């Protein structure tokens, strides 16, 4: 007897299958990728009563095996083509009791594939006890599968779920040979039978699907012309629905219109043509307000903790290149990753709460038409909003967009949305552009400029999206059709795991790139040709001005000189002629280069160059920058240089991690390099215009 080892959880989107997955696995989960595609794969372990570990995989939600989106294709890849390293050998099918009519469709397909199946009917607390009992017995009797009607909010329901799952795992499964619900049409019978002989098909239906589409995901041509294939799919779907309708008539029981009156009433306001939009903007405003205010304290704490540990290690460790690598390369790199975590946690916490509650699909409905004019989809809004925290999880969230073109355009323009790494740069420079005075008595002028920068980012993103929309031919049909889930109280475990997984994605994806770059930058900015630093030190130490300085000032001055003559300094001077028309000098040049780790590194680099030590904040930097003079005695950071620099940061793709993620999502360096060149050109031209015109 072969025991089940690798069980997949399958069901419609919003069927409650992720909740079941979380109940069975707890927080012991792993985010991976499916072979060959960049769709997140959630895996966890269920410990059986015999203390055996059973691997559970949460497959993306789908309505049918005839798939339409990249996410849904995963289902057919895993269940029909079985090209994962550890093929699925059993299925837990989750169906929402409120919407059984649709949700049974995929179940009948799954059953026809002859997988051992355990059926969970979820959301029992939303229907009458009688209805739930009737369906549970009926389905169990019809399918011969263990069936469990349950509510995820009731403890005894969960205990029963685990008991029944155990029985399911202990059962003998070699003998599963169900009679197919859907019969292969006469016209294909001969070919399908031939095919089945040569392939390890699990059933006639499995052979039919394999035979019809050799592999839809590999773009191989199907056995049938597209219209014929579609006709076949519709015929199959219809025959399944007539069976389901037959089942429904046998149950002979319907709840009185429980019909989600609450959701319907709430939607009268939340999806209202006018109030709906207004409420959406208020909700977004609150989300960002909360994100910035809650994140402020932990961010400062993290910054201080890293600065402190770096300083104390510096004093503790002997003067050695390795100690420097640790205190100037690795620790700041780590700090650069950690400091963004609070904002990312809070933004995703709120977005996940809104999504779990059912609100985000309403937003998709409200904005779809507007966004579709720019070649985007209503679903793009989630990526665009997330982009304000960090482009990396935002780009990853675009995977739920069905249409390839819309998904591509959304991920292409996300890096233009002002992310949290740009904020420190803007904060350091904004004072040189406008004074912190009040306009019309209430508005802070600097606040208005910040707002303007957000609008600039969003506006440019939309413009570029529009240009791409006109430029790229339509490959597949764009559509919206989707079901609105009922509003519900978010399940805390569900929210928690989603947020944890998003943050993990950021730490792993961005983290490794930021670390590598920051070590590389440490090398470039701390080394030069052999002997050069000693020479500089000798020359500098003889200068009269230097001798009169205090010890602390002396070491800061030396640091600045060293940076000037390091490899990074040389590169900065090399590119100076190119950036001079923008109002930048070689010092800014160095900072532009070091910003590739993450944009906020700008602040640290500028602090080192202007010899105020590298653990300083934007405020201190601003004071020093204020005193920097040009040869003619005027301030170096005047209005036009500062504005030009801010605009440069608004557009340029100064983020290696974003490029790495784009490479992974698009399967090559072509797109990230195109983005880099395009946004870089845009940044250059915009800054040039500002500096030359003012």
């Amino acid at each position, binding site marked *: 007897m072969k025991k089940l080892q690798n069980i997949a959880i399958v069901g419609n989107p919003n069927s409650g299958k992720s909740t079941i997955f979380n109940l069975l696995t707890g927080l012991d989960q792993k985010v991976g990728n499916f072979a060959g595609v960049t769709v997140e794969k959630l895996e966890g372990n269920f410990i059986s009563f015999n203390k055996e570990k059973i691997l559970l995989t949460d497959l993306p939600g789908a309505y049918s095996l005839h798939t339409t989106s990249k996410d849904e294709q995963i289902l057919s890849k895993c269940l029909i083509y079985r090209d994962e390293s550890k093929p699925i050998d059993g299925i837990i099918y989750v169906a929402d009791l409120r919407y059984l009519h649709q949700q049974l469709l995929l179940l009948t397909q799954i059953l026809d594939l002859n997988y051992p199946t355990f059926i969970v009917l979820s959301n029992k607390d939303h229907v009458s006890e009688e209805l739930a009992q009737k369906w549970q017995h009926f389905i169990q009797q019809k399918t011969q599968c263990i069936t469990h009607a349950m509510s995820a909010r009731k403890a005894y329901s969960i205990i029963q779920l685990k008991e029944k799952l155990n029985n399911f795992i202990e059962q003998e499964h070699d003998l599963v040979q169900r009679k197919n619900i859907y019969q292969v049409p006469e016209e294909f019978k001969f070919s399908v039978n031939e095919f089945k002989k040569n392939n390890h098909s699990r059933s006639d239906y499995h052979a039919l699907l394999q035979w019809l589409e050799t592999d839809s995901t590999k773009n191989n041509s199907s056995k049938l012309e597209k219209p014929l294939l579609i006709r076949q*799919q519709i015929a199959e779907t219809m025959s399944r629905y007539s069976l389901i309708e037959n089942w429904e008539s046998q149950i002979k029981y319907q709840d009185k219109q429980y019909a989600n009156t609450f959701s319907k009433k709430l939607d009268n306001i939340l999806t209202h043509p006018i109030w709906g939009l207004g409420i959406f903007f208020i909700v977004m405003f609150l989300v960002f307000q909360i994100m910035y205010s809650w994140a402020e304290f932990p961010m400062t704490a993290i910054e201080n903790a890293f600065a402190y540990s770096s300083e104390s290690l510096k004093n503790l460790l002997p003067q050695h290149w390795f100690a420097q690598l640790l205190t100037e390369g690795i620790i700041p790199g780590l700090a650069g990753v950690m400091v963004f975590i609070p904002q990312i946690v809070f933004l995703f916490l709120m977005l996940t709460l809104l999504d779990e509650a059912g609100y985000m699909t309403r937003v998709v409905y409200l904005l779809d038409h507007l966004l579709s004019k720019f070649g985007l989809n209503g679903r793009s809004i989630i990526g665009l909003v997330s982009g304000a925290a960090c482009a990396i999880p935002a780009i990853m969230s675009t995977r739920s967009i069905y249409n390839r073109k819309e998904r591509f355009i959304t991920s292409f323009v996300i890096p233009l949305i002002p992310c949290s790494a740009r904020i420190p740069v803007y904060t350091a420079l904004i004072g040189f552009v406008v004074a912190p005075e009040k306009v019309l008595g209430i508005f802070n002028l600097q606040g208005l400029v910040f707002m303007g920068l957000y609008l600039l980012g969003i506006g440019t993103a939309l413009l570029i999206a529009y240009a791409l929309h006109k430029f790229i031919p339509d490959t597949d049909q764009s559509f919206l059709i989707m079901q609105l889930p009922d509003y519900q109280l978010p399940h805390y475990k569900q929210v928690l795991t989603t947020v944890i997984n998003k943050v993990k994605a950021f730490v792993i994806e961005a983290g490794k790139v930021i670390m590598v770059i920051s070590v590389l930058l440490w090398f470039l900015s701390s080394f030069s040709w052999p002997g050069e630093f000693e020479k500089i030190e000798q020359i500098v130490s003889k200068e009269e001005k230097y001798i009169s300085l205090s010890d602390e000032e002396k070491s800061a001055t030396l640091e600045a000189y060293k940076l000037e003559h390091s490899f990074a300094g040389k590169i900065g001077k090399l590119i100076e002629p190119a950036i001079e028309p923008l109002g930048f000098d070689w010092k800014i040049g160095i900072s532009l280069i070091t910003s590739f780790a993450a944009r906020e590194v700008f602040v640290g680099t500028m602090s080192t160059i202007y010899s105020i030590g590298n653990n300083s904040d934007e405020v201190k930097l601003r004071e020093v920058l204020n005193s920097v003079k040009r040869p003619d005695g005027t301030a170096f950071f005047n209005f036009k240089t500062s504005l030009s620099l801010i605009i440069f940061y608004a557009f340029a793709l100064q983020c290696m991690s974003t490029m790495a993620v784009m490479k992974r999502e698009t399967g090559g360096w072509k797109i990230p390099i195109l983005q880099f060149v395009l946004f870089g050109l845009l940044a250059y031209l915009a800054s040039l215009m500002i500096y030359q015109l003012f």
Partner: protein
Amino acid sequence: MLREIIRITDPELAVRFFTLGIYPGKFIEIIRRAPFGGALYVQVDQSFFVLRKKEWEALETKPVQL
């Protein structure tokens, strides 16, 4: 106003409609429309769906006499 679906004219959209349980013989009702000629909010059986105008036009419907 309640309408009955007679036919779905676009075959590719049809697959999508069918899998969601929207097919000939079902009753469909427009609940509201998004601003500026945007998406439609409809009810079929006990479920609510949103769809674009173009998708709605792929549904051939007739009014239901109650």
